[in-house]
């Protein structure tokens, strides 16, 4: 069976993507600016100015000094998405005035997020039929937290989309050589989106190597083994350099002519030459290897070329970049009444939080689908399981591994655990696919079970599918735009999660719930402290018409006349300091989601 979708499914996928884009755009205005987002807005504007300079004065723009000046801000993340945000804002908001500034920044995020339902449909329909593709696509955005994250000009949803796109293209390219370069390009774009993508080769290499081994003749296998030997030799060489030079010395002494450069070039040249030999001697073996080769060659090139900040100082700055993410700080996070501040974090945290935040009507099919996939995968190794559940095969393994990889990665007790579900979003599209297959299996069995004609199966699918999507849809609509506060039925919803002692919210965007009150009640020029809202976000609320421009940001309660405190267990002191500064513990208003305090507003009784 061909892995390519047919024309109708391509059109359905396109329609799904367009609908997702429109829905995200239509529901964007209410979504507050999360703490990081306003930083990305500022960075994006700065990058857009550099692009303009590049257009008008290329020689000035390309100097080390100007590049450093333009790209030093927020160099914690690569700049593909930030560049897209900045260019979109410059065109649609600043030049054409079609949209407000925030929407201008966010449009590329909607476009990238909208590829997820499209890709899910393409993949699901190719694998198991149109019903599966449709359900997977529709189910992805009726998860409140996923719907929320898709609105943000950040990188968590884009990298989930990129991850899905790379894996899908890899899967397609394993039978269609023409898609290999696209896989490499997509991998480069994923690297340029967020650092999660550096794990993609770890996930995909075993599949490509194993498929090549299976498809190859003796000569190709010999060459493949030699590639392995080259990789091992390169690892030994790198380890030797590390021992001799030390971590800092390795970075400090890396020059154009250095053992380090020699090692990298030798590795790339040797692997490329061996891959070329496989391509010449055994084309069937090369096809499944080609996407990996393309990823290895194009990925780093795209990553390097897209990011001017690393052009002149690739070693130092990339070392800093990797070091920053490898040693990221741990933010406090509330979990069952305990504020987690430092590792080791509970091993089951990610699984539990996933279960508590998904609508239960999607969680159950996903869980059944994941379990079935792994039983079938293990059936490849254990005949007893194969007899009962069938065998997996490479696609089933690919889906199963990707559905779990990000979840398991973040589960490591030393990995930072803040940020709700956003750090393991790349797993969620794969879980949506596996869940959709379970729903379809259940539907397909119904006509026989109910004695109905087979032609009724689509009607049954619509009925059951709608029933399963409805709780998620209503929950998403109910909690929007406060997605970071969303909890599913297993948690008892938002109030149940509060009683269980789970994180109430994060990232500060819920402040939008009290901005209308502040706009209506703040005195002219009043000093307002929006707790957890950084200065850039304060400015963005004002310039997007969400906060009156005459109110002034205060640095803390002692400096403020109005204070909006965000409820975080780790920030209780902040609210108490408001009581102290204002001389009252009685709030005036607040954002209470399903009774849970989220943002509480106090006013100083008399003006100083």
């Amino acid at each position: 069976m061909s892995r390519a979708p047919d024309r109708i499914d391509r059109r359905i996928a396109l329609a799904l993507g367009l609908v997702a884009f429109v829905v995200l755009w239509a529901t964007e205005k209410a979504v507050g600016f999360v703490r990081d987002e306003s930083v990305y807005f500022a960075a994006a504007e700065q990058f857009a100015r550099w692009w303009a300079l590049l257009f008008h004065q290329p020689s000035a723009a390309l100097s080390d000094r100007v590049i450093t000046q333009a790209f030093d801000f927020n160099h914690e993340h690569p700049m593909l998405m930030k560049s897209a945000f900045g260019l979109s804002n410059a065109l649609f908001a600043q030049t054409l005035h079609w949209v407000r500034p925030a929407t201008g920044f966010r449009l590329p995020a909607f476009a990238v997020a909208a590829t997820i339902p499209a890709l899910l449909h393409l993949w699901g329909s190719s694998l198991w039929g149109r019903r599966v593709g449709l359900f997977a696509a529709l189910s992805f955005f009726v998860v409140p937290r996923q719907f929320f994250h898709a609105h943000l000009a950040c990188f968590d949803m884009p990298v989930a989309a990129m991850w899905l796109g790379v894996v899908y293209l890899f899967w397609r390219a394993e039978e269609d050589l023409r898609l290999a370069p696209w896989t490499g390009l997509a991998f480069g774009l994923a690297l340029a989106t967020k650092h999660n993508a550096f794990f993609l080769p770890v996930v995909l290499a075993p599949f490509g190597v194993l498929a090549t081994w299976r498809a190859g003749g003796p000569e190709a296998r010999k060459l493949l083994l030699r590639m392995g030997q080259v990789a091992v030799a390169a690892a030994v060489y790198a380890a030797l350099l590390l021992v001799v030079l030390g971590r800092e010395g390795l970075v400090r002494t890396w020059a154009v002519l250095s053992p380090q450069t020699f090692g990298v070039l030798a590795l790339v040249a040797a692997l490329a030459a061996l891959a070329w030999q496989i391509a010449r001697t055994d084309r069937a073996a090369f096809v499944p290897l080609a996407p990996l080769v393309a990823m290895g060659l194009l990925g780093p090139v795209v990553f390097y070329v897209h990011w001017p900040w690393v052009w002149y100082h690739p070693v130092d700055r990339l070392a800093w970049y990797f070091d920053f993410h490898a040693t990221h700080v741990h933010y406090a996070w509330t979990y069952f009444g305990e504020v987690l501040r430092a590792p080791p974090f509970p091993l089951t945290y990610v699984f539990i939080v996933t279960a508590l935040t998904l609508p239960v009507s999607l969680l159950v099919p996903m869980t059944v689908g994941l379990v079935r996939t792994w039983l079938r995968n293990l059936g490849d190794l254990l005949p007893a399981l194969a007899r009962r559940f069938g065998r997996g095969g490479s696609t089933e393994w690919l889906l199963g591994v990707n559905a779990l990889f990000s979840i398991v990665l973040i589960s490591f007790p030393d990995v930072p655990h803040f940020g709700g579900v956003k750090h393991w979003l790349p797993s969620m599209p794969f879980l949506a696919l596996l869940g959709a297959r379970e729903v379809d299996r259940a539907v397909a069995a119904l006509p026989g079970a109910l004695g109905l004609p087979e032609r009724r199966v689509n009607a049954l699918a619509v009925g059951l599918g709608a029933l399963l999507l409805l709780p998620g849809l209503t929950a998403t609509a109910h909690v929007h735009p406060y997605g970071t506060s969303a909890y599913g039925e297993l948690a008892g919803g938002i109030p149940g999660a509060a009683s269980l002692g789970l994180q109430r919210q994060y990232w500060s965007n819920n402040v939008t719930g009290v901005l209308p009150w502040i706009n209506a009640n703040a005195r002219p020029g009043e000093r307002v402290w929006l707790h957890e809202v950084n200065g850039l976000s304060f400015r963005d609320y004002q310039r997007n018409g969400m906060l009156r421009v005459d109110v002034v940001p205060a640095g803390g309660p002692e400096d403020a006349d109005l204070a909006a405190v965000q409820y975080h267990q780790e920030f209780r002191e902040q609210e108490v300091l408001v009581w102290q500064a204002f001389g009252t513990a009685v709030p005036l208003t607040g954002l209470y989601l399903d009774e849970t305090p989220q943002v509480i507003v106090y006013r100083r009784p008399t003006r100083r």
Partner: protein
Amino acid sequence: MVGSAFLRDRARIRAAIPAGVFALVALFGLGFQLHLPRAFPSDADYQAAVAAIAAEQAPGDVVLLHPWWTERARLFLPAPIPVVGYLGDTADDLVAHPRIWVLANEHLPYVPDADFRAHFLPDRTPLGTPRQFGPLTLTAYRNGRARTVRFSAVDALASAEVSVESPGSAAVPCPRTGDGFACRAGRMEPAWHEVLYQPVRCLFLLPPGGPPRIAVRFPDVPTGTLLLEAGITWEHAWKHDRSDVQLVLGSPTGILHLRLPQAHEGFVAGDAPMPTSGPVTLTVQADDPHEREVCIRLRVLGDPP
């Protein structure tokens, strides 16, 4: 014939089970969402409950929220009535409050009733029958753990003298600044702070650091039981690489020594008899004062009211 029909029916039922389970789960989800809003009190429910409290309010009353996080009630409760609602509040003795109004919402999911029974109910006796205001239940309890508070350091700071004592040299008095005292190194003031999620109005104190210690002397403390509680404020409490804080309470009958160790969250408490009234001096010292901001409650408790 019958057997094969039975087997066929069994097979059909088995085939329908996955779809049936999925449908039931979806109905559960929908049912939950439809049912949940019934657990939310209206503004009128809160206003009625508050009116009932106000009608019978007496000095020393306190309102305890159950579950602890249902703080929307604060919008409706007038300022004079203290409201207690923090993670762990069921274990609070609330010694200054002979009567506790528990404003509970039992209709919310996962209400921590077991915790309430285990930590709140002992020594508390319901006064009258619970009253219902929508989903809210209002019950007054006599607080068997209440004591007469004869002295509270935070309220008596106006009469105190504060100084910094260094080994081998004379004490250096700290001048008053507003409600508190500012020393050359270190300071003390009455303030609201958080100790392990509990908002507390306390003596907020920054020790000077090194061997010197900050000393606060109350000239005339009444008889009873001296109760000293001290905790590090906010998130600094859990940190592992910080100095211990040493507290020494000198009274006419002797010395009470407390140590606030690093990484200890919450209050450390100790008590001592105060059989005769007289002066009491509390000294606080930390080798390194960095993030050793101490919240101190020093009270003299008498008999139950």
